[in-house]
């Protein structure tokens, strides 16, 4: 009770917590519940991916790829608000790197597809809609993945979708591309391309999707990729948790009522969970309304203020409202309007003067060398969301480490307040 009455405005940390662990620790929450999948970090010890398949990325590479994803999201929102959906038109402004937007800093879940079910590890993405996996015979191209590639011919419940089906035309909003139609079989052909020019093209299909032994979605619509290129890091494809009607969230409306929840673990060596359904959502959650629509896929939020060590930063609310905000499971580092980021880093630095500042780490410019100390005390950063909901960011969500000698404030600024 005393802790509630007197909020703690500081985190105390052991610097050893910045070191990676090789031991997987399972979450005690959400485990083995109905409608629940385990969430693991692709590069952590809880992932079953072999080191040969998923070569751990350098922190600089992860942050570079993260910027690619941000550019991709920005481009998609621009396209949507202009009413134009020609993804190709945005290529010139986007970095041309192979698959990196999807491949960095991502969390994966394992689902079962087909009859008998084939387990597939998919990237967990609230920033896109279409679920797809690589499919045999990989008519054009498949990248290397950890599990064997899904074979439609081995599933007794698999079928292709016809070009004339309404679900086929729904691909336009779900992928940003109009579907194609096979001249020989009238099968619906999907194509999805990400901002870095990685892509998947193949048959739009349906099959049985098994989340747990008691949670099965029959006739789940997904992309069966025959031409897949990019560095998806050994994952078999992508699980689209966006707002579009073809996302898994919308497709499982009857079973779970368009409610889902997740927890991303504090370290790559821990597991989290992804749970579908209202009954299993956290009872102690504080809610903020979605803000006005940010495209058809994204989940918009209204950020109103930021606190550092219990003190509210002097930032005009219009700084936040003019740019808007979304929540995304695939973007690593939170991006803020530069005016807000500047105030945040200044306040954070002012409370960290007893520690040694060190060189920047890619997009992160407030970094410390903690190699000469065993414990550190950092101010709690809190976000005030619409509805007057104040959420404290965990210590693990405040700093991003590249070893003990380079631990950085895990926030970055956009290029312009109007971004």
């Amino acid at each position, binding site marked *: 009770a005393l802790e509630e009455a007197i909020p703690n405005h500081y985190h105390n940390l052991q610097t050893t917590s910045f070191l990676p662990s090789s031991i997987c620790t399972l979450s005690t929450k959400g485990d083995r519940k109905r409608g629940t999948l385990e969430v693991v970090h692709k590069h952590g010890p809880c992932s079953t991916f072999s080191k040969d398949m998923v070569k751990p990325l350098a922190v600089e590479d992860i942050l570079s790829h993260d910027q690619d994803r941000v550019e991709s999201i920005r481009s998609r929102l621009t396209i949507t608000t202009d009413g134009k959906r020609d993804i190709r038109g945005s290529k010139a402004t986007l970095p041309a790197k192979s698959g990196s937007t999807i491949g960095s800093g991502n*969390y994966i879940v394992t689902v079962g597809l087909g009859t008998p079910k084939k387990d597939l590890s998919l990237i967990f993405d609230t920033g896109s809609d279409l679920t797809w996996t690589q499919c045999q015979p990989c008519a054009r191209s498949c990248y290397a993945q950890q599990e064997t590639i899904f074979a439609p011919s081995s599933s007794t419940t698999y079928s292709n979708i016809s070009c004339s089906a309404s679900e086929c035309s729904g691909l336009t909003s779900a992928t940003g591309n109009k579907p194609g139609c096979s001249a020989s079989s009238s099968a619906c052909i999907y194509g999805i391309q990400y901002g870095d020019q990685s892509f998947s093209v193949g048959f739009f299909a349906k099959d049985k999707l098994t989340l747990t032994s008691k949670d099965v979605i029959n006739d789940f619509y997904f992309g069966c990729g025959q031409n897949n290129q990019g560095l998806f890091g050994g994952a078999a494809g992508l699980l689209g948790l966006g707002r579009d009607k073809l996302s898994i969230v919308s497709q499982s409306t009857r079973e779970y009522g368009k409610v889902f929840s*997740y927890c991303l673990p504090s370290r790559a060596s821990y597991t989290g969970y992804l749970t579908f359904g209202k009954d299993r959502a956290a009872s102690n959650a504080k809610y903020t309304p979605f803000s006005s629509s940010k495209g058809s896929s994204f989940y918009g939020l209204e950020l109103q203020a930021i606190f550092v060590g219990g003190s509210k930063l002097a930032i005009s609310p219009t700084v936040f409202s003019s740019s808007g*905000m979304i929540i995304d499971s695939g973007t690593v580092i939170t991006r803020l309007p530069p005016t807000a980021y500047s105030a945040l880093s200044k306040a954070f630095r002012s409370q960290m003067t007893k520690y040694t500042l060190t060189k920047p780490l890619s997009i992160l410019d407030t970094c410390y060398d903690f190699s000469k100390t065993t414990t550190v005390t950092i101010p709690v950063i809190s976000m005030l969301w619409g509805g007057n909901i104040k959420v404290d960011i965990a210590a693990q969500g405040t700093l991003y480490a590249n070893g003990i000698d380079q631990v950085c404030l895990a926030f970055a600024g956009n290029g312009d307040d109007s971004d």
Partner: protein
Amino acid sequence: IGIFGNVQQKTLGVVYDLPAGKVGFAPGGCA
């Protein structure tokens, strides 16, 4: 556009309730 990224979401239980038009945050969501 600002983006609330996955590092900052660590340890929070994040609840998406589309019919109600709201997102929830629960501290200690993984514990």
